[in-house]
């Protein structure tokens, strides 16, 4: 069966997975290093393409006091790396229907009252594996600049690592999600080209032609659709 191969001639390096020492070839991601050493990974794995946020990980490098974070499916192991997956980080999430909230701006403080308590430490930005300026997004949300939040946090994969570091104990990714949704649902004008097309579909403009096409013989249909 298909395997993720380390490069030919790859050197073996030493890593620590969940505190245990292993030798693995260089050129593997953290997840691939776990497979290589026989780990079955189910919690902490999802798309393997860097967008689902399932594989948040924390690691340290030798001789460096700093704690690093990463997505394990996208991050290569390095000599001396010690890492663990944080498959899930407990988070409070608000219950709401975005279309029913009386005032979208006020709604943020009702649902996430802690969102105005940022102490500006910037740990959330430093921890973000997507390189998002999380602190700025929290302030944009608090000041009601939901459009700004949408732009700042577009690449958020909802891994929750920002929650793990926030000294104000908020969930910046959930706050950003609310702000983005409020912007899209409540502030941004509904697109006119879509409204017009919905109207013409609803008034049955295309029904007759679509029904006629559906009833054609395969050969007739091929003839009608074949020409660009």
């Amino acid at each position, binding site marked *: *069966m*298909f395997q993720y191969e380390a490069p030919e001639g790859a050197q073996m390096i030493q890593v620590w997975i969940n505190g245990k020492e292993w030798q693995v070839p260089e050129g593997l991601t953290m997840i691939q290093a776990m497979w290589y050493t026989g780990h079955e990974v189910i919690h902490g794995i*999802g*798309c393997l393409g860097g967008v*689902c946020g399932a594989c948040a990980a924390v690691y340290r490098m030798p001789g460096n006091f700093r704690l690093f974070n990463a997505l394990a499916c996208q991050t290569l192991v390095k000599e001396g790396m010690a890492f663990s997956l944080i498959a899930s980080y407990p988070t409070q999430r608000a219950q*709401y229907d975005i279309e029913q909230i009386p005032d979208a701006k006020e709604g943020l403080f009702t649902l996430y009252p802690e969102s105005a308590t940022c102490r500006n430490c910037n740990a959330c930005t430093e921890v973000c594996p997507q390189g998002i300026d999380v602190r700025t997004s929290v302030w944009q949300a608090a000041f009601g600049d939901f459009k700004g939040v949408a732009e700042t946090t577009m690449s958020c994969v909802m891994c929750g690592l920002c929650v793990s570091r926030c000294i104000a104990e908020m969930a910046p990714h959930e706050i950003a999600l609310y702000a983005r949704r409020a912007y*899209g649902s409540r502030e941004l004008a509904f*697109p006119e080209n879509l409204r017009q097309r919905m109207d013409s579909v609803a008034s049955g403009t295309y029904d007759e032609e679509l029904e006629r096409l559906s009833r054609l013989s395969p050969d007739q249909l091929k003839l009608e659709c074949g020409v660009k």
Partner: protein
Amino acid sequence: MTVEKPPLINPYDNLPSFDLAEPKAYSPSEREELLRRYYPDYRPDRKTTLHVGANAGDVLPDEIASILESRSILSKNVLPAVPSTPDIEVDLLVIGGGGAGIMASIFAMEAGARVLLATKLRVGDSNTVMAEGGIQVALGEDDSPVQHFKDAYRGGHFTGDPELLSVLVREGPDVISWLIRKGVLFDRDPSGNLSLRKGGGTTRPRLISAKDYTGLEIVRVLKEDLLNSGVTIWEFSPAVELLQGPEGSCAGAILKDVDNGSLKWVKANAVLLATGGTGRLHIGDFATSNHFGATGDGLVMAYRMGAKLLNMESFQYHPTGVIYPSEMAGMLITEAVRGAGARMFNRHGKRFVQELETRDVVASAIIRECEEGRGVRTPSGHHGVYLDLTAIDREMGEGTVERRFPNIVKLMGKHQVDCTKQPILVYPTLHYQNGGIASDTSGRTHVKGLYVAGEASGGVHGKNRLMGNSLLEVFVYGRRVGEEAAREALERKPFSWHEVNLGHVEGFQKNLEKEFPGTSRPEAPILFPDYRKHSHPDHA
């Protein structure tokens, strides 16, 4: 003593100079010949003829035949006895937590059904969340659902189901409007209209997108609404077998809690399979762009129960999957980069195919280059061709790649490839299951009480799919089938748990023994691909 090992060969060390001369267009017969010789669907090797089940006689890829003609994973000999009571009773059981499963659950709940959504990993871990390029919806002034229909039918090589397609194009605008009202942010043009972009094989610009994060943007929003909807959600609980009720109908399923191995017996008036595709079977040993759980579980379970499959010989090998760095093998580079002007070159720096040919033609041309020695060798011993995005910035202005494809720039950058300056090495990657479980426009399969939506279903795309139509299918049919299945579940004549059994599995296994006497058959659904190298019996 340490032995000096030779340094790794970097395919970027000796880049050829790129010759921009455009290759000539293929004639229809050249195109056909290229596909016949190089496209995996048409090659005779690695194929098996099915002997058992509703599709006996079909010639399918070995890996698909192997999971279809398989035994239950529940027991080597005797299947487990049905317990005296089910663990849970619901109107609708939705199996799968990707785009289709989430939509179906939300709308079934709104229709008044008690809904259980069971999924193998977390809600949202799916191919939907990975969709980069966009959704097709006919919004242009010179465009219409009729034009969309014609493009999709032609794009499917005239093999799609016209009725299914007609629903898809007609309901598209409405389902997009629902997403927007929920707060999904699609790219807008300066006047506030949804921006429309051109995809391969279409006559009009018709792709709406959220940069190259389209699937992620939608799933973030939908997942939150699902969690707030009142649907019961069981994660890490894949279905391993369907349950049979009166007259061969579907009456629920057995789920397996992957954390403690326990089986959960679900009684349901209706079961909706939204289990997605099969990329993780690595058909033909291709790398895949699919998420970790794409192992075709729904196909296996439905086939045992007698459901018919459609076009299961047909897969989409997306032409541009990353092949180097090797740890990224299979990761998709969206077709939209070619739409924006990216060019492809072989080892000698020559272009070898017009980049906006249909996906199957482009993939075949790449395979041809590599098989005929014009591919670039990677340090893992694979071959690929160069996909150069720098032309986009040259033609459309510095910074365009960064602005339109931030996700690709970010992901390649994490692996030390600056794709705004360097080409990406690509090779076709197993991307999409064109066929699937046959159904009508309400998602009804040949088995009463069993429904299907999304990539697990077949018919809409026929034998080829155009970019952006699968994402539309997921939302149009997810919603529609969720509502229909809920309505029929609420109207279904009550049946007793005592009528529930695994007779269909027993029957299927008897047929297997008849056709393959004395040989052991593989077990399925396989649930998870196994890439482990050590400490595992298969690798001992």
